[in-house]
C-alpha cells in the first residue's frame, strides 16, 4: 500500500467513500453528516480526504472510463 504522500487524492481512495454508481460515483458519509450533497464523482476530492486503509478499484476503473469517454468524443 502506498502512503498518502505518494497517492493522488480522489474521493475514490478516501476512507469515507462507498460505491454508489460504480465506478464513477461514490457516496460520502462525511459529507452526509455535514448536510452536504453526499453523492460525488469518484475522481473528485475535498479537504476532508483521508487515505482508505485497503485500496479498491474505484479510482483505477473511473480513470479508465474517463479515458475511454475522452477517446469516444
Amino acid at each position: 500500500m502506498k502512503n498518502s504522500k505518494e497517492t493522488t487524492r480522489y474521493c475514490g481512495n478516501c476512507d469515507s467513500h462507498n460505491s454508489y454508481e460504480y465506478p464513477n460515483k461514490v457516496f460520502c458519509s462525511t459529507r452526509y453528516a455535514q448536510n452536504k450533497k453526499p453523492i460525488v464523482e469518484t475522481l473528485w476530492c475535498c479537504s476532508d480526504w483521508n487515505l482508505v486503509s485497503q485500496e479498491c478499484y474505484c479510482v483505477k476503473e473511473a480513470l479508465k472510463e474517463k479515458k475511454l469517454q475522452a477517446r469516444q468524443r
Partner: protein
Amino acid sequence: MRRKDYLQNPVEHMKITAPLTVDQLMRQFKNSGSFGAGRVSAACDVYEKMLRDKECTVFFALSGALVPAGMRKLVADLIRSRLVDVVVSTGASMVHDAIEAVGGRHYKGSWLDDDYELYKYHIFRIYDVLVPEEGFVRLDYRLAEVYNQIADERKGESLSSREFAWELGKRLDDPNSILRSAYEMDVPVFMPAVRDSEFGFIHWLHSSQLDRKNVLNVDAFKEVPEICGICSRSPKNGMIVLGGGVPRNTVQSAALASKKGLDYAVVVTMDRPETGGLSGSTLKETVSWGKVKGEADSVMVIGDALVIFPLMAASVLERLGAEFKRAPFLKQVKQGKK
C-alpha cells in the same frame, strides 16, 4: 414397550413416477418415514395442521440469508395468503428485502469467487450470492431520509421493532416486499436484534447529521409485551423456524412467558445441539423449558431451509387447495368475531 410395539410400521418403499407433484413426492417421503424424508414430510403435516387449526396463531421465525438467496417473494406471498400470522426476523433479512424494494438486486455467484477481488469491486459475498455495495448504499441513503421523517413525526417517542417495521413497510411501494406485504396485511414483523444489521448503521448515518433535532428511537424492550400479548391472547400457538438464532428464541420465549408453550413447532436448521447453542437445540430439549408443550406436534428437519421450506410450502398449498381461506384467530378477535 413390548417387542412387537417397536415393529408396527414397516418402511414403505418410495414409488417415483412421472408426472409427480410436490405433495405426491412428500407422501412418498412419508411412506419411507425415514431420515430426512420422514422429517420433511412430517414438517408438512405439522404446518398443515397449524393452518387448519382455527385457534392457532402461526409465528414465522426467519434467520440466515434466505431472503437474498431467493425466498423473498415466497415469504411475502405467504403473508398475503394469510398462511403466516406473525413474522420474527433478523434485521438483516429485512434489510435484504428492503434493498430489493428500493431497486437493488442480489446476484448468483460462486463460493469459489476471488474474495479480495470482490472487495476491490465493492461486491459482498454471501456464500454463492453476491450483493453489490450500491444495494446497501442506496438503501442507506433512502432510509436515512425515512428515519428522518419517522423521527420528525414521532418527536422523541420510542418505537418497538414492530412499529419500526410497520413504518418502513408503509414507505416501501414494492408489492413483492415482505415488509410492504406485512404492512398491507396488518401482519406484525418483529426484529428483536434490529440493531445488528444495516438498519443499525443507517441509524448512525441518520443521527450523525449536523443539526438533526429529532433522532429515531427504537426500544428493544417495548416489543416484549407486544409479542407476549399475542401468544397470550391466542388459544394455540405454532412456529415455523428457518435457521434459529434470536428469532427462534424470541418466539419460544414469548410462548414461555405467556405460560402456554407452543402447540406446534417445525424447525429447519443445519445447526447441531452439542454446543448448547439455541439454534441447534432439539425440540425435545425445548420441552424441558416449557417453551414447547410435551404433547406438541413438532419436528426438526436437518437441512438447507432454502431447499426444504419451498418444498414444504408447495406441498401444503397443494393440500389446502385454491379454495382454502384462512381467518387468523387474532384478526377475528380484533374484528369482534370471537
